[in-house]
């Protein structure tokens, strides 16, 4: 049992180191963005938030997708470690989604003249944010570890399946969100310096994801350990 705590401590240290590295990287991205990346002609300095908004959206998408895939895997394998990973990924996804949802309006106000716009990608992130808030609430309301894992896996899968429906339904509304500038068939429309900064930032956020999930996973081990020692079920 104490092996668990040793492992948790090691993972926490490793995750912490990766997170620290990623945060330094994020500072580096802004140093790059402010000093070496051209300022967008019509939007001015406000566009610089792009280098955090887009990678955060990317991070949220990666987190929720991996949570959904891990959820499907859990239902086949019933492996508690997969459940712990799915839960960690969902929680980190919430943090990224929160960053995306707060930087969006800050960017939107000066450029679009409105804090909020029901654009497909913003709405998708908002709804996923709500679904995974519910996911977290459900987890904390359940005490049977097996039940908690199965229920969250079902919601993780359902959320993944819902994504195209959200996108399609909201897309039919008029959108003022910038059209995709990187992933489009004709190739990126972004100036090469901006693209480079963006890609560095996406890399940094991916690293941040790895760091945070590792830390959250370590906490999951510690929590399970505490739960197991707090007493078993009524047999």
């Amino acid at each position: 049992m104490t092996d668990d705590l040793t492992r948790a401590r090691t993972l926490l240290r490793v995750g912490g180191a990766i997170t620290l590295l990623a945060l330094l990287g994020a500072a580096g991205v802004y140093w790059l963005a402010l000093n070496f990346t051209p300022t967008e002609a019509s939007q001015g300095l406000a566009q610089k938030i792009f280098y955090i908004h887009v990678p955060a959206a990317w991070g949220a998408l990666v987190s929720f997708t991996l949570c959904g895939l891990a959820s499907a895997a859990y239902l086949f394998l019933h492996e508690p470690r997969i459940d712990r990973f799915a839960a960690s990924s969902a929680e980190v996804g919430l943090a990224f989604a929160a960053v995306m949802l707060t930087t969006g309006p800050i960017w939107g106000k000066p450029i679009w003249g409105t804090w909020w716009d029901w654009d497909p990608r913003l709405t998708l992130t908002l709804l996923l944010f709500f679904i995974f808030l519910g996911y977290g609430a459900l987890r904390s309301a359940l005490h049977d570890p097996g039940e908690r894992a199965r229920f969250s896996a079902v919601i993780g899968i359902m959320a993944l399946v819902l994504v195209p429906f959200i996108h399609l339904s909201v897309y039919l509304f008029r959108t003022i969100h910038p059209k995709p500038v990187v992933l489009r068939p004709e190739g990126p429309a972004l100036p090469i310096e901006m693209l480079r900064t963006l890609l560095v930032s996406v890399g940094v956020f991916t690293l941040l994801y790895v760091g945070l999930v590792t830390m959250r996973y370590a906490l999951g081990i510690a929590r399970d350990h505490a739960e197991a020692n707090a007493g078993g079920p009524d047999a």
Partner: protein
Amino acid sequence: MGEFFRVALAVAAKDLRLELRTRATILSAVIFAALVLVVFNFSRDPTAVAAIDLAPGVLWVTVAFASVVALNRAFTVEREHAALDGLRLAPASRGALFVGKALANLAFVLLIEAVTVPLAVLFFELPVATAGWGLPLILFLSSIGFVAVGTLLSAMAVKTRFGELMLPVLLLPFLVPPLIASAGATSRLLAGRPLSEVVGWLRFLTVYDLVFVTLGLLLFGAVIDE
């Protein structure tokens, strides 16, 4: 296959019988829906906003909330005396149990709509005649989706201490896409547009239903089986 539907119908018939005997949930869901309609009416400045502009949104919010009230009931009846274990002991596929619970829920939601929609027509002077058969079709299609997702989620929510609160939190985000489709299609139809103009939304609802009914059949076992 006969086995599948025999079990599904037995479960659905049992739920209907239980509900008709107590009438507790359906009655409160209907009253709740009527009250929501009344409240909405007074939230509108009649000199600035025409009832017809607000009506599709009001109708669908009311239907969605009333459905949550009905869906909350679905598994509380199985929780008392561990009746769910009784279902799980049956030599039946989990899909059949899901369909049984979902069919009963569908009946309840349609019943609530049968009361709510005429009330909305009355309160908001909706020109339902212009909408024709499109409106019942939209109601039916969206109810299937509501119920498929709602049955799965309510089986989980009932295991928590504040299940009645947990269900809407889990369910409403999943209902947003079909609600967008339904409200959009409803407002077109009420504005006198032809049915052909909402075919896209109808297709959207049909695909949503197919996908989530399938998911329910596949995942219900993971929800109820330890």
